[in-house]
């Protein structure tokens, strides 16, 4: 699906990168632990997280994540948003909690990172 579709499914608001909504999202991952994200997440993923510090954007940058969506209505500070804009990483925020966000995307056919791996 595209980031635009994911945004609609999550009823999310765009905080950065509204010109980047056309890109494909191949899978998603929900986590608040950045080290976990760095172990498991594959590129072209959407990260759902409640963590709003700038390290989330750094993590996304290192792992080539497609976009970040903050859950539970969380919003990052302006510095984090600026960093994301500078690195062309879209930021979204949804009022839905983590479980529901993941659930909704899953029922719309978006696989998780382990599902998407071709090798074990």
């Amino acid at each position, binding site marked *: 699906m595209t980031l635009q579709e994911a945004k609609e499914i999550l009823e999310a608001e765009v905080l950065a990168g509204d010109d980047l909504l056309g890109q494909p999202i191949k899978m998603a991952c929900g986590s608040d*632990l950045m*080290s976990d994200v*760095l172990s498991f997440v594959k590129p072209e993923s959407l990260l759902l997280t409640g*963590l709003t510090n700038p*390290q989330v954007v750094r*993590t996304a940058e290192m*792992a080539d994540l497609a976009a970040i969506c903050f859950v539970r209505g969380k919003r990052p500070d302006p510095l984090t948003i600026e960093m994301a804009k500078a690195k062309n990483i879209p930021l979204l925020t949804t009022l839905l909690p983590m479980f529901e966000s993941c659930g909704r995307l899953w029922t719309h056919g978006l696989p998780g990172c382990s599902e998407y791996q071709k090798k*074990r």
Partner: protein
Amino acid sequence: MALNNKISKIQELIYEISVGEVMRTNLVTVTPQTPMSRLREILREKRISGTPVVDGDKLVGIISIEDFIKWLANREPDCPIGQKMIKEVQTLHAEEPLTQAVNKFEQFGFGRFPVLDHQTNKLVGIITKGTIVEGLLKKLEIDHIEEEEVYRHRIKHFFEDILADKVSLFFQYDVEGQNFKRAGEGASRLKSSLRRLGLDPQIVRRVAIATYEAEMNLIIYTQGGTIRARVEPREIFVRVEDSGPGIPDIEKAMQPGYSTAPEWVRELGFGAGMGLNNIQRCASKMGLYSVVGKGTTLKIRIFTEEEAKSETRRNDSKTGPGR
């Protein structure tokens, strides 16, 4: 930044591009015998504001909508255009640079200039401010695309283009301990640099993640250190060093989930005890050496050619328990 470049590019182009390159060549013309009453139709139908008057293929005058309005306002009887046209026509030559056209527009305030061929003086086209803008925009687009392609091609073959028996690029990043504001900057800059060299994105990602985790360790546990990366065609070697406090039990530290991170670090999303394991997972080879009170050295090697074979090998041998 981009806007500034585009503006000076336009200035360049105005000197480079000739009138002939942007002029409109599908011309609407009238003859001196055409009656003025017909002019309205012609101007409206073709959506133009003026037209050259030609006798055969010789330019004899020019007539514009202003002339038409004057004729109308004075309620003059119908007559051939030849009587109302301007006979001294300002023209441009096809070979002239656009600067000439711009100057003439400014000087005379006319809406259009017929363009003549320099040698034969035949009418070959017409130029208005609109055609200049169109032409510039087209040229900018083409140039922009070409520049990018050349740039990308050049960078991708960086190592191939350098003639030497051995090539090695060295990058160093100094990391300040305990400074979370800039945490990840070293890894980020290294990643951008490797990207620019046109290295395989998978390789770049692995280097980036490994370096990032190592940088976080420097920031969380030490007063600072250095990241030194050596980039060669077949491998990337990253060495991360600090001068304290050292790791008392390396084996324990390598256990996934084991962490000595203080509480405030966990609040930042780190301290899950996965850092060293992530590094191990990304690296083709990894070595960790530490002396308590003296410091720690982390060596990471990522092979570029091994990529295809390494996926399976790493998954088999280096995966920690229960992942």
